[in-house]
């Protein structure tokens, strides 16, 4: 299948798949799809069911929080080589942010239902996928904390 071959190559090129056993890669490709988002198009919105995750191939995506009465606040921007979305991994499997393509974005998406099933039956795959998500999550947590510190603002007067 030409398409699967293509997807395989695409996955191969993405940092996420570095060092992944070819057999497991093949299992993943079975759940993958190639997607394209125009600038301004939403990949998903907060509160929707999280049925996928994305490996961004090119472009940039803004992760946003919306609050009534004010413009959405961008909390992080993702680019080529980044992984978007981990809400699919755990209940309640709902997106907690909006994801908006800032520029034309191409991504490889993975069907959560498909991949979850495979991960459960093939623990080696399960382990490898999770092992790749943990640093992504840790990095995101760390970055969130750093942003929370408001480092560059004028120092608050100590009491």
């Amino acid at each position, binding site marked *: 299948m030409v398409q699967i071959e293509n997807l395989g190559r695409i996955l191969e090129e993405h940092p996420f798949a570095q060092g992944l056993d070819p057999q497991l890669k093949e299992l993943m490709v079975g759940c993958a799809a190639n997607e394209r988002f125009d600038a301004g198009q939403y990949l998903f919105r907060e509160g929707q069911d999280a049925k996928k995750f994305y490996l961004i191939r090119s472009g940039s995506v803004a992760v946003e929080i919306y609050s009534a009465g004010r413009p959405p606040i961008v909390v992080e921007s993702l680019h080529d080589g980044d992984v978007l979305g981990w809400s699919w991994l755990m209940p309640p499997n709902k997106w907690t942010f909006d994801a908006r393509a800032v520029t034309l974005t191409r991504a490889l998406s993975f069907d959560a239902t498909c991949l979850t099933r495979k991960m459960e039956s093939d623990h080696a795959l399960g382990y490898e996928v999770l092992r790749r998500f943990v640093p992504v999550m840790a990095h995101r947590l760390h970055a969130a904390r750093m942003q929370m510190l408001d480092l560059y603002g*004028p*120092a*608050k*007067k*100590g009491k």
Partner: protein
Amino acid sequence: MSAMPGEKAVIDRERLNDLISILNRQGYTVIGPTMGEGAILYDVVTGIGDLPAGWGDEEEGGRYRPVRRSDQALFGYSKPAQGLKGHLHPARQRLFAAERAGNGFRVLKDEGKAPRYAFLGARACELAAMRVQDKVFDNGAYRDPHYFAKRDDAFIALVTCAQAGGTCFCASMNSGPDATEGFDLKLAELGSTFLIEAGSERGAAILAQLSPRPATDADRQAGVAQIAKARQQSRSMVEGVGPMMAARLEHPHWDEVAKRCMTCGNCTMVCPTCFCTTVEDVTDLAGNNAERWRKWDSCFSVDYSYIHGGAVRSQGAARYRQWITHKLSHWVSQFGVSGCVGCGRCITWCPVGIDITAEAKALGG
């Protein structure tokens, strides 16, 4: 007789009056030990009568008492309460004055003339301390004119110690009780006479006017014995303290000391090498004239390490660590000498008696 540098001679104690007069005639203000209010203090002396004849001192951690001696020795104490730092590096010193001029301002020339000091009775540890501060105020790149205006011309009539004070540990710091250089005259009090030698040409010139007689072997031996006796000190600094401390910047003992340390800063104030200062801007109410003053500061104050937002060293433990590690360890890296000369004043004048030698030992153990 004409005295050559290094050659030992003997003078009668009354000759000190001549020494003081000669120095006064040469334009020096003579600073020497006096019996002050509650302790022996450096002050202006005009004659031998101002010296603390018959006074000694008892010192231990957090305790000082002036005590009567059985004899009338003029230098029979270990060291005055505060050293000579205040004379060369005053607690308050004006750096400059400025006045508004048009849209801007003009820095005014300081017309004040620095005092010319002669230090009579300076101890070896105090001379060592001056030599340490010399390195601070002339650090290669910059030389502080305010300090050296007084220091460059200072005449030093050292008096070696006849006995060690209760908190002295100069022997282990190699900064006393004797000195081999840096003085103009060196004296040792032997009963009613002084063993004396010149360390500079101007010292020798003055010595020649003091009717010295050549020292006998007995005089020299008495001098050697006296130094040997003063070397017997109950405290000593632990060996290799510099690298040891540098390796223990994070150690539970800092918190132990912090329980006792009041961060009052007394140790830094009495330390003859502590040089830290802050600045103070003074203005008239209309804002047309301003002055900038430098005044002693202490690494024990919170403001000392203040950067916008807060102080780097908010904890007492961190402030104590800064002081002692700087003194005993980092100083060596910075200036090639230890910042501690073993005078023991920080021990004596710590209100709670924290002992730098004991804390260094505890930290090393």
